[in-house]
């Protein structure tokens, strides 16, 4: 693949998959048949973002809603609220994001798989990947806080009451949502399977 085709393929990644299926070949053909300037690349990127904004993926919608739940616990909630992260009691991961470890979040992952299959008539693994992506979006405030603590931007005590009184390791905070994601792959698949079955 030439550098130009690689760049065009990269630009097209800015668009949602279902849009690419419909219009991707045409747009790629135009982009490879005329000079590719920075202005055109910016125009294509902006078009991709607009398309993503028009029809957000179920994983993005549910991920952002879950993110707001985690964020509200993290930023707004008083110290008396349940901890945002808690010790897992196992070697890896040492931390769990409470919302992602809750029963209700399993239902969210099931809905994500169900909705993804309903909308895209996709393969079961793709519904699983969508649920994983949703988990990473939802856990991003914890990962970001971990990163900021690791970089020394945020005081470690910021995370103390949010972890139920102990100071969590910033690396564990960054890893907790990533470590949680694989299990939701299966819940996403199960949700998509339920859509096909019922």
């Amino acid at each position, binding site marked *: 693949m030439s550098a130009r085709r690689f760049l065009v393929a990269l630009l097209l990644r800015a668009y949602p998959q279902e849009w690419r299926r419909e219009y991707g070949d*045409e*747009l790629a053909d*135009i982009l490879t048949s005329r000079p590719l300037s920075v202005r*055109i690349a910016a125009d294509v990127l902006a078009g991709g973002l607009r398309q993503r904004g028009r029809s957000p993926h179920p994983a993005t919608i549910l991920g952002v809603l879950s993110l707001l739940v985690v964020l509200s616990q993290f930023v707004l909630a008083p110290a008396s609220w349940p901890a945002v992260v808690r010790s897992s009691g196992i070697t890896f991961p040492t931390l769990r994001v409470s919302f992602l470890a809750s029963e209700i979040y399993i239902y969210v992952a099931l809905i994500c798989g169900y909705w993804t299959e309903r909308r895209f008539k996709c393969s079961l693994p793709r519904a699983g990947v969508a649920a994983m992506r949703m988990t990473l979006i939802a856990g991003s405030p914890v990962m970001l806080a971990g990163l900021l603590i690791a970089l020394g931007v945020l005081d470690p005590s910021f995370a103390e009451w949010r972890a139920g009184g102990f100071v969590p390791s910033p690396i564990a905070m960054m890893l907790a949502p990533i470590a949680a994601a694989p299990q939701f792959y299966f819940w996403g698949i199960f949700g998509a399977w339920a859509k096909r079955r019922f």
Partner: protein
Amino acid sequence: MGRKPSSGPASDPELLILASLADGPKHGYAIMADVEQSIGVTLGPGTLYTAITRLVDRKLVAPEAVSGRQRPYRLTRAGAEALEERLSAMKRVAALGLRRLRTV
């Protein structure tokens, strides 16, 4: 080569595409070339396809059978009506403005 103006009717990619398709089906590249040659406005490929997607969703434009890697688009009946309505409204506004300017 003109760039897309930031205001005025020529800044509306959907209107430009509808006007370009008024004389028959064209594929994306041909629409860009036609708008550039006839109106002097360059539509970026991203802007073009964002507008085409919206027009197809609103059933003002319909895709035809694919020829090569490019697919022609045609104006639907609803698209032709919408274009005529908008151009007539613009014509009325232009006529009013010019008439009043002449009387100043």
